[in-house]
């Protein structure tokens, strides 16, 4: 958890990360977020997600604070096909699918063995 310049809390959303030989999939918890609340960007091997959820009526009188602001940077150390990245949001879960760049079919590579 961090704080912004204005002292507002920013939460690091919980996430699950999966990888298959053809793609990488991230499931990120953003409870309360609608599509327009989420900002997502991919730069090099870093995926950045940020969301700000609408304020609620009334004043807090008990319980914990439910997160309103989320921010997290994911490092994805794979070769990715940037054009094919897809994201969908449902029930407060943001699902991001990133296709992996595949090596050319049957591209077996000889590994030179050095003397030493």
């Amino acid at each position, binding site marked *: 958890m961090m704080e912004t310049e204005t002292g507002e809390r920013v939460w690091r959303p919980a996430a699950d990360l999966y990888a298959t030989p053809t793609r990488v999939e991230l499931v990120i918890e953003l409870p309360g977020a609608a599509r327009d609340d989420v900002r997502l960007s991919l730069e090099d091997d870093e995926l950045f997600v940020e969301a700000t959820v609408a304020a609620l009526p009334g004043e807090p009188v008990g319980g914990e604070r439910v997160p309103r602001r989320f921010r997290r940077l994911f490092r994805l150390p794979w070769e990715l096909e940037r054009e094919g990245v897809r994201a969908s949001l449902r029930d*407060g879960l943001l699902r991001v699918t990133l296709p992996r760049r595949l090596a050319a079919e049957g591209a077996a590579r000889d590994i030179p063995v050095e003397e030493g």
Partner: protein
Amino acid sequence: MVSTWRWTGSAGPFGEIQVLVNDLVEQLFGETEVVWPAAEVRRTETGYLIVVAVPGVAREDLSLTVDGATVTLEGLRRPQEPPAGAEQLTRERLVGTFRRVLVLPEAVDGEQVRARLVDGLLQVELPRPESAQAREIPIDPEVSS
């Protein structure tokens, strides 16, 4: 305010996470209970609003009961079906059953409670009983003796 987080009894396929999370919590707080889901009680003009963050939890997996001033929420977080052939590299999202008991500052009328689940946020509106709502009190004219 009472709050409990209960893991499913059997270790099952999630025993590993249970250990992992409990270790982490023990390190941080010296206890084994995790407060999940986060629940916020707010006072509004007409009563109370309880907001609970339950991302990915289906409506049919939630049950809510109101008894006087006590609100109990129970539910189940189902494990997600991983993509075919996937290797799971991080597992931060919790799974299992949960139960939270929240006590409001005053009793509410259970009949008037409305709950909705939008974008993974459960919002429960609990109006204050009519008799307890603010009303203007007429001031009797002074009666001279």
